[in-house]
C-alpha cells in the first residue's frame, strides 16, 4: 500500500505546486492519475520518487516512511519511475541502461521479451546509445523499459507513457500494464490523459491545481469525467464560484 498524507511541495521559486495530496493506492490494481496540464501530476510523481523533496506530509510505502529518504534509497526500496521527459546519455547504450535498471547483466531472452513489450526490436536497438539520435517515441519506450526491467520494483510510476508512442505499440503497452497488475504486490500508477488507459483503470485519481479533485473506482469516476469535462478543465474557476 502506498499512502500519501497531506503531501505538499513548493518549487524553488516559492510557488506551492502540490497543496496537500491525500490518497491510498492498493497493489494489484491499475491506478490512473489524470488532470489538466500543469495541475501537478509530474510534480507528484517526482515527489513520490524523491526526484523532488516534498516540503510537508507523509509518503508511506508498506509501512516505511519515504519522505526523508533520497532518490537512491527510495529506488532501492522499490520505487520505479518512468520520466515524462526521458533523459539522454552520450555513451550509454540501451543495454547498459537496462542492465543498470535491472541491477545485473541481462540475458538475451529477457532483453527480447522486455523490448517487445515496449514495441522495439531488440537487434535494432540494444546496442544503440541512448542519445539524441533516438526519436522521441523510441526514447520514450526505452524509458518505459527501464522501469519494466526493475527487479525489485514495488511501485511502478509511468508518467504519460502514451506520449509520442504510435497506436500499434500503444496497444502492446496497454497489454503490458494489464499483465503488470496481475502481480498482486505491484503498486501500479500511470499518469495519463489517454481514454484507453482511463477505461481499463481500476481506480482514477483526478488532480487539479495541486490537489486531488476526485478519486475513486474507474467505473464511477470515468463517466463523471466524460460527462463534465469542465470539472477537470477549469478546476480553479469552479472552486472560486
Amino acid at each position, binding site marked *: 500500500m502506498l499512502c500519501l498524507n497531506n503531501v505538499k511541495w513548493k518549487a524553488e521559486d516559492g510557488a506551492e505546486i502540490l497543496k496537500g495530496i491525500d490518497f491510498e493506492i492498493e497493489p494489484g490494481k491499475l491506478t490512473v492519475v489524470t488532470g489538466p496540464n500543469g495541475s501537478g501530476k509530474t510534480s507528484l510523481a517526482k515527489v513520490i520518487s524523491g526526484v523532488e523533496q516534498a516540503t510537508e506530509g507523509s509518503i508511506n510505502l508498506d509501512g516505511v516512511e519515504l519522505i526523508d529518504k533520497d*532518490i537512491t534509497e527510495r529506488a532501492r526500496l522499490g520505487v520505479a519511475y518512468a520520466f515524462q521527459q526521458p*533523459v539522454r546519455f*552520450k555513451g550509454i547504450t540501451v543495454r547498459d541502461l537496462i542492465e543498470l535498471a535491472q541491477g545485473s547483466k541481462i540475458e538475451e531472452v529477457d532483453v527480447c521479451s522486455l523490448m517487445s513489450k515496449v514495441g522495439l526490436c531488440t537487434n535494432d536497438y540494444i546496442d544503440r546509445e541512448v542519445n539524441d539520435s533516438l526519436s522521441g517515441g523510441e526514447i520514450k519506450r526505452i524509458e518505459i523499459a527501464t522501469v519494466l526491467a526493475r527487479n525489485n520494483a514495488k511501485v511502478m510510476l509511468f508518467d504519460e507513457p502514451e506520449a509520442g508512442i504510435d497506436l500499434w505499440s500503444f496497444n502492446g503497452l496497454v497489454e503490458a500494464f494489464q499483465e503488470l497488475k496481475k502481480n498482486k504486490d505491484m503498486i501500479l500508477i500511470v499518469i495519463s490523459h489517454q481514454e484507453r488507459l482511463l477505461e481499463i483503470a481500476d481506480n482514477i485519481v483526478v488532480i487539479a491545481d495541486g490537489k486531488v479533485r476526485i478519486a475513486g473506482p474507474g467505473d464511477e469516476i470515468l463517466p463523471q469525467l466524460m460527462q463534465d469535462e469542465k470539472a477537470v478543465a477549469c478546476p480553479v474557476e469552479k472552486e472560486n464560484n
Partner: protein
Amino acid sequence: MDKITESLLKLVSDWDDDVYNGAYNIRENGGCAGRQSTDNIKIEPKEGGKGIDIYIKEGTKDEKVYIPACISKSNVEDLVYNDFHVGENADVTIVAGCGVHTDDEEGSSHNGIHRFFVGKNARVLYEEKHVGTGEGGGKRSIDPVTDCQLEEGAVLEMNTQQLSGVDHSIRTTTGKLEKNAKLIIHESILTEGDQYAKTDFEVDMVGEDSAVDLISRSVAKDDSYQEYHSKIKGESRCIGHSECDAILVGNGKVNAAPELFAGDLDASLIHEAAIGKVAGEQILKLKTLGLSDEEAEKRIIDGFLNA
C-alpha cells in the same frame, strides 16, 4: 621485459599470454623488447635505434600490427620516430599504446613521432591508449606527434584514449587529405589532480570529396586543465565536422578553440562544442535506478569517455 612493462601492455593493448597475434614491435624504456614481422608486414629499425619503419604490403587484409611503447621507471626520456607505409588497398589495424610508470619523485616521458603514409584506397584502423601508473610525484609525460598523409580514397580511423595517470600531454596531429580520402578521429581524454593535456589538430582537405570527422570527448576533474585546438581547412569540395564535448568535475577547466577555414565555395564545415558539468537530470535518472550519486557520476563519465 619486466613485470611492470607487461602490466602496462595489458592496459594499453590486448596483450595476454605473452604474445601478440601478428606483427609487433615492443619498445621498453627506449630499447626494443621484441619484434616480429609477417609476410605482409615488415618492421625495420631505423638507424641508431631511433624508431622503426613499418611497411604494410599492398592489398594486405585483416592483419593487425602492434607497436606499444612502455616506460617502467623514472628518468627515461624516450623520443621515437615511427613511420607507417601502408600499401594500396590494404586494410589493417594498428594497435599503438603507451604506458609510463614511475614510483618516485623523478619523472619520465615518452615522445612518439608518428607519420602515416596511407596509400590509395587503403584503410587503417589505428587504436591507441595512453596510461600513467605508479606512486610518487614524478611527472609522467606522453607527447605524441602524428602526421597523416592520405592518398586518394584512403581512410584512416584513429581511436585514441588517454585513460588516467598521465600528468602532462601535448598531442599534435596534422593531416593532408587527397581526393576521396577520409580521416576519422575519436579521442577521449581524462585528466585528474593537476594534470594538463593539450590537443592540437590541423587537417587540410585538399582533395575533392575528402572528409574529416573529429570527435573529442574530455573529462577534466579536480584541478586539471585541458586545452583543445582544432583547425580544419577545406580547400575543395569537402566535408569537415568537429565536435568537442567536455565535462567538468570539481575545479576542472577546459579551453576549447575550434577553428574552421573554408577556401572553397563547396567546402562544408561544421563545428560543435559543449562544455559543462555532468547533466543533473542524468544523475537523477540513474539514481532512480538505484545508483548512488558517486556511482551515477562515474557511470556517466565512463560512458561518455568510451563512446
